């Protein structure tokens, strides 16, 4: 009788240890999974931020169009381009409206969150009002691109 009791006791102890071990391992796995997903989001955002050269933009004075090419790896969304005359920044500040996207199937819809700005796609943006066209002519156009994941200064070069 005593032998049976000892066996049952031993079984309970083993069961308790196994349950404790399982609970600990389960918590560890969930913790690792949470951290991994959080890190993945951050890393993904950094990849999205790899524009490499967003500054392949040109300021075409004759057409009044600013061309912006996206060379990032991951798609960007809700892209806006803001420009100003560096000699008179607040009063000449404006957000450039899009004219066309880089392909026939993608036109003027980059502010729609469902349409990503993809690698090697070119945006053609209307120039700001006349005062910014003048700034463009004198190479004094300051522009920033602002997306969901990244904001960056554009290097604006005048087309000769």
């Amino acid at each position, binding site marked *: 009788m005593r032998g049976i009791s000892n066996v049952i006791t031993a079984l309970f102890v083993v069961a308790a240890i196994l349950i404790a071990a399982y609970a600990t391992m389960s918590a560890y796995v969930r913790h690792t999974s949470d951290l991994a997903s959080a890190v993945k989001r951050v890393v993904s955002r950094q990849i999205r931020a790899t524009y490499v050269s967003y500054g392949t933009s040109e300021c075409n004075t004759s057409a009044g169009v600013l061309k912006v090419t996206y060379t990032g790896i991951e798609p960007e969304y809700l892209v806006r381009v803001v420009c100003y005359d*560096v000699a008179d920044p607040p009063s000449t500040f404006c957000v450039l409206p899009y004219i066309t996207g880089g392909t026939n199937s993608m036109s003027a819809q980059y502010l729609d969150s469902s349409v990503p700005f993809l690698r090697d796609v070119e945006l053609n943006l209307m120039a700001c009002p006349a005062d910014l066209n003048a700034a463009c002519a004198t190479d004094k156009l300051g522009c920033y691109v602002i997306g969901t994941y990244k904001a960056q200064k554009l290097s604006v070069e005048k087309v000769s």
Partner: protein
Amino acid sequence: MAIVALFYTWATASTTQVSSAIYTDAAAAEQRILASVAILTPPPINIWDSNQPVIIHNNGSVPIVNVRVIYTKPGDPTPIAPSGKLIDVDGNVFDINSTDWPLEALSPGEAIIFWLPADSSYSGYTITVIGLKFEKSVTIGVAE
């Protein structure tokens, strides 16, 4: 049997406690990762004869609530609340006057732009973004 029951209770309680603590840590870490702004400033070593812009961009995944932006000039600790513009995710622009701070929120993807006064060098200017459970500061010319 009583000893076994006691051991079982202790083991269960302690693992639950550990699990709870781990989850709290993970949630706090995740919150820190989710709330984020990028502060773009002009380069420090230049001779500027015009105002230069500062961009505050919410590149995180949650809104920064009750957000205030201030800057200080080198050698003068008096904080200055700038006037500027808020650009929302649809491309709308809203003027922000120095008396409008704090803003209700700066949502993911939204940006604030304001201009520092013309200076021979922007080295030493400090820009600070303060929100609910959030603060980030950069000093131009000093690595973050």
